[in-house]
């Protein structure tokens, strides 16, 4: 059986499997590297992914924790941070797989 971290990654792979490489790389920029975007399609896709997976509030709090760290108080719990970290790993793994597929004839 897959461990739970692998399952998170597989969920990420499945969610974005039909998204083009051009759009997907921008999704990774947004969700994994916290870069803003002017592309409506990317923005909507990121919002939909977070909303569909009930992560909108958790992700918002996660970003706030990163930007405004406090010594004795976090907006997110340990498990929530772990889920977002694993999703970021999943996004980067998916990027690697796509890159590898492009290199292979």
């Amino acid at each position: 059986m897959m461990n739970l971290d692998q399952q998170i990654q597989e969920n990420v792979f499945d969610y974005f499997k039909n998204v083009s490489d051009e759009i997907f790389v921008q999704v990774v920029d947004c969700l994994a590297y916290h870069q803003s975007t002017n592309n409506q399609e990317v923005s909507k896709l990121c919002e939909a992914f977070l909303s569909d997976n009930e992560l909108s509030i958790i992700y918002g709090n996660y970003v706030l924790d990163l930007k405004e760290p406090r010594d004795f108080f976090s907006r997110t719990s340990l498990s929530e941070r772990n889920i977002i970290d694993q999703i970021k790993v999943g996004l980067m793994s998916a990027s690697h797989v796509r890159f590898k597929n492009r290199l292979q004839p």
Partner: protein
Amino acid sequence: MKTIMVQDILENKIAVSDAQNMVIIHKGEEYSYFDEGTSRYVFTNPDKTKVIKLLKTVGGHGHDFNTSEAQIYNNASDVDKEQMVRTELINGLIEQDFVMPIKYAGRKLTIPQLTFAASCRNEVGWAGDKLVCFDLDEFKKY
């Protein structure tokens, strides 16, 4: 396999560690060993509809996780109870509805289910198609 009454364990006539290899009679039904954690053994009935949890250390000065678990359930809101397995304290043992732990079920979880499981240190199981926490000391603690 030897059959014993649950009272024999609760009254310390038989060590609970030895009971792993025995059939325990509780409310006229047979329970056999299913799993264990750091503080308790879990036994289930043949049709896997209920479990009983027995403390590894009966009496003494150890923390009574069974009493704590019953208190957590009884004090929980109705909304939280929806995500907890039904729990009852009977003469010092915990009786719960059986749920299949995710570590044994082999079913794929969605991200919301994984988020809930992680918040309960993965001590959750399937009640039909719904995930519920069975180790209430861990419920949304992480």
